């Protein structure tokens, strides 16, 4: 009988004569001879977006517990799920299932995908050192070239408000509407208004990575007062590391006309002291409420108000040398489509200059743009960046917070917004969280390992919270015909791993509308309880909208999957490819062939005996079923094998008939832990032709409370005694076998904005 369908993808466990319990040997070759059924999964539209209020970083340990997140479905399709996962050590494989709801706990598996450990690690910008899951993880950058912004963003931890007896307003303190920036472990504040008049006071505030904000220390005053419409940034000399504070523009009178003055001072990063201010070469244009950023010893002045409602779209830049600025140059101006150039945020990450938001006098803006910074200090062409999820504009002259080389973040309108940026450009979208803290004077202390401590001070208190760089694995999990408004579950289970190598996830509060609480169970136990403190998993779900470029392929029900890694820059070059093909797992039942006897196999409605009359491939014996001729069903039942809930199993038999028979099937019986029979899974009843070894298979997930499975080879329809059935193999196999994974980096001779040209190498990362 012809092998007509293209076999599903499978990786080999054996040689070409692979053991027949997992597959027909010919399938190993024939899988390459046809096109496979599958899905191309795109970025998609978010249908479930996390927006927590600050939770516990890496609180959930998948090495000890299965985690389930219920959610209310929006729409009818799912394309992929993005899950925050931290590999500890080398991590482990991750099994992700979409499940129906069963009285509040995960029920029937609708779709399932296994993500190999190699993918998770290769796409992570940070990981934890191997070690016990009972202590906080020690986080480090991985340096993985595919740990791009596409798969790594930021997580906001819980915030606390702390009394801070160093008010920023009033006599003896700093002023309102001050210009502010931060650098290293110091917030720097200058100018502002007090009693309606511009001031010249300057203060520094020390902070650390543990949540402690120091007092405001007076520093050398400005040479002239400023009403807070000036802007400052800190430039680092790339040769000496010296920090120069550059203070530009503003107005010497409250609400007055802009000026083009430039002052600098040197910040002693050991003591926090500032030297005397010195005047520098004036800017080409007098501006106020503009934006500033610095990179590689250059400072940039972007846009700003020119007085009388006028706006500048210019971008000027200057090199800071020995604390001095001797000249300014003009570079690529902002696009004319930028709605306003005042009160914008600006920041630099990974060699890209970003500007976003602004305030036009009536409305805040969400526009975002970025341009590459060239080696000359000039910038290249502006490209649109993902728009900010909420309107943002500068308060008190604070730029966007640059989180080392990992991206940018800011607080606006009760939201903490962040944009991951890597050397390959920005992520495709901002992440948001609900910010319940307060304060406008901002600082960000870097732990140097993908962790930061955020500060926001105002009046007599400050808010502080941890921020963690977060790997997010994108899991292709296509499903259609779902019910809008119904409850489903994302079941997340680690596969394998050990005490030192496992996975962790975040837990957060009030993550989703309706606040569905995450569930936890001991691994494979399926006994569910609420996650501690009623937290949830801040995952994200996307539909099957064919938006942007392909991100995944998902073939043969998830047997073979892939992920395409691209740059975030306009060229969208492919820089990596992750592939995985499942290898059929060994049978879970002990006696899957009869070379060594019948084991615990039994017959019902007939007899069972060993036979050498008809044997399959290299096997030496088969089990012979001789029907009684009187029973409606004659069948052979295998030994009981332990099964795991949430998994999918295949039952397969290979059998032979000299005369052929019309009604043969393979079934799976399910039993509870105490041997109680559950509803069996019945395979398709079909004919076995004469004199042809034929494989019958069925796949199913164990029902709730099942602990054991049993494979059954059956002839139905009252088979006559002459309908002998020789069974060569009867195997119950976990569908989720071991993945054969690969991760490949694709390199080019150049990087954007230089045309990248053709690829120059493929590097096997895993």
């Amino acid at each position: 009988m012809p092998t007509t369908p293209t076999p599903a993808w499978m990786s080999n466990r054996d040689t070409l004569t692979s053991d027949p319990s997992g597959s027909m040997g010919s399938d190993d070759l024939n899988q390459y001879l046809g096109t496979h059924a599958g899905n191309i999964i795109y970025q998609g539209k978010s249908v479930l977006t996390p927006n927590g209020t600050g939770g516990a970083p890496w609180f959930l340990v998948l090495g000890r517990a299965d985690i389930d997140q219920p959610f209310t479905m929006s729409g009818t399709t799912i394309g992929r799920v993005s899950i925050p996962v931290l590999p500890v050590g080398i991590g482990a494989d991750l099994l992700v299932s979409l499940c129906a709801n069963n009285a509040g706990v995960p029920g029937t598996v609708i779709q399932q995908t296994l993500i190999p450990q190699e993918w998770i690690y290769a796409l992570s910008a940070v990981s934890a050192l191997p070690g016990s899951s009972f202590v906080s993880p020690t986080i480090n950058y991985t340096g993985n070239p595919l740990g791009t912004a596409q798969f790594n963003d930021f997580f906001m931890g819980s915030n606390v408000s702390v009394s801070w007896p160093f008010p920023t307003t009033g006599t003896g303190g700093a002023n309102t509407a001050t210009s502010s920036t931060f650098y290293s472990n110091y917030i720097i504040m200058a100018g502002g208004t007090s009693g309606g008049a511009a001031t010249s006071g300057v203060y520094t505030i020390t902070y650390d990575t543990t949540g402690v904000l120091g007092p405001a220390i007076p520093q050398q005053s400005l040479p002239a007062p400023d009403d807070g419409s000036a802007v400052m940034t800190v430039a680092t000399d790339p040769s000496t590391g010296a920090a120069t504070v550059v203070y530009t523009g503003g107005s010497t009178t409250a609400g007055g006309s802009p000026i083009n003055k430039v002052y600098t001072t040197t910040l002693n990063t050991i003591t926090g002291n500032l030297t005397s201010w010195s005047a520098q070469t004036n800017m080409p244009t007098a501006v106020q409420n503009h934006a500033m950023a610095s990179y590689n010893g250059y400072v940039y002045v972007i846009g700003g108000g020119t007085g009388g409602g006028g706006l500048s779209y210019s971008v000027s830049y200057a090199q800071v040398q020995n604390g001095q600025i001797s000249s300014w140059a003009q570079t690529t101006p902002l696009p004319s489509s930028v709605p306003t150039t005042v009160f914008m945020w600006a920041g630099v990450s990974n060699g890209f200059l970003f500007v976003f938001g602004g305030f036009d006098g009536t409305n805040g803006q969400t526009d975002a743009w970025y341009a590459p910074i060239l080696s000359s200090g000039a910038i290249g062409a502006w490209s649109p960046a993902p728009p900010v999820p909420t309107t943002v504009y500068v308060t008190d002259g604070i730029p966007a917070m640059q989180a080392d080389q990992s991206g940018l973040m800011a607080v606006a309108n009760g939201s903490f917004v962040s944009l991951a940026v890597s050397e390959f450009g920005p992520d495709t979208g901002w992440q948001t969280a609900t910010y319940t803290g307060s304060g406008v004077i901002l600082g960000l202390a870097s732990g140097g390992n993908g962790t930061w401590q955020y500060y926001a001070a105002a009046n007599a208190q400050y808010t502080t919270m941890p921020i963690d760089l977060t790997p997010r694995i994108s899991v292709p999990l296509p499903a259609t015909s779902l019910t809008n408004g119904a409850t489903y579950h994302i079941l997340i289970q680690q596969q394998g791993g050990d005490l030192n190598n496992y996975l962790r996830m975040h837990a957060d509060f009030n993550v989703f509308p309706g606040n569905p609480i995450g569930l936890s169970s001991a691994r494979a136990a399926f006994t569910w309880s609420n996650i501690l403190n009623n937290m949830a998993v801040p995952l994200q779900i996307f539909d099957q909208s064919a938006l942007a470029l392909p991100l995944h392929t998902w073939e043969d029900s998830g047997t073979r999957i892939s992920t395409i890694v691209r740059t975030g820059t306009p060229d969208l070059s492919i820089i990596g490819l992750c592939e995985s093909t499942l290898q059929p797992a060994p049978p879970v039942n002990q006696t899957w062939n009869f070379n060594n006897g019948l084991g615990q196999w039994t017959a019902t409605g007939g007899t069972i005996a060993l036979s050498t009359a008809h044997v399959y491939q290299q096997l030496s014996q088969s089990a012979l079923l001789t029907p009684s001729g009187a029973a409606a069903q004659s069948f052979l039942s295998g030994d009981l094998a332990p099964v795991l809930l949430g998994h999918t199993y295949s039952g397969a038999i290979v059998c032979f008939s000299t005369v052929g028979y019309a009604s043969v099937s393979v079934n799976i019986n399910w039993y509870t832990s105490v041997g109680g029979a559950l509803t069996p899974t019945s395979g398709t009843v079909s004919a076995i032709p004469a004199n042809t070894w034929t494989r019958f298979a069925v796949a199913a997930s164990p029902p709730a409370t099942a602990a054991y499975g049993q494979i059954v080879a059956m002839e139905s329809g009252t088979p006559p005694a002459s309908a002998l059935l020789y069974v060569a193999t009867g195997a119950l196999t976990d569908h989720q076998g071991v993945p054969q994974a690969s991760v490949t980096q694709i390199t080019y001779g150049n990087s954007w904005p230089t045309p990248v040209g053709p690829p120059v190498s493929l590097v096997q990362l895993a």
Partner: protein
Amino acid sequence: MTTTPAWKGASTGSQPLAGQVNQFLGTHAATFIYVGASQGSSTTLAGTATNTNSLYIAQQFTPGSNQTIQRWILTLAVTGSPAPLTYTIQTSSGGAPSGTILSTTVIPKEYLTGVATAVSVPTAQTALTSGTQYWFVFNAVGDVSNFYSVSRTTAASGASTSTNGSTWTAQGYGLYYQRFDTTVTGNLTHTYEDTGARWTTTTFNANATPNTLQEYTVAQAANDYVYSSRTFGYSGTVLTSLT
């Protein structure tokens, strides 16, 4: 080994061959077959058919010009699950198929339905001489329950049948066919590799995006093959699935 082995799928119960691995290590000889220009046809259907159950079925044709043919449209149907249908182009001898085969294409049953349908079939590039008689032949295959049906035309002659493939009897009807040459026109319709060991068919939507893809590869055992049939799914013009 100096050349890439011809395509060959694996058959259950057969020993694997080194060539079945090595077939993936090199490029295969292939023909890319486009719609082409029609070079001859007989297309007025009579509404009846001849079955391949124990019967070879052939149709004569004589080109009016020198031409090279590589694609045919035939009207066929299948009943039950017969072994694949072998379709050959042969020279003529004594007014009957000579047995000298110019091209062979194996058509799997999955390619057809129970309803007579015009299907495109690739062949090897076959050079035909003007004024010379040729035949296309369907081999006998199947039984009373499993067979192929070849549609007839209203022509009063042209077809012959045989019970053994060598002794032929002319019939009072013709068979439906269209033949196309190697002109590169229209969409890429077929690939034909290793003298028919592997061939594919692609159909297209009105906007020129692929609609279906069928793949056939001969396998080791007699009458065995590997077959795939996929339909492309789109969201607008963006490919989203293969089913």
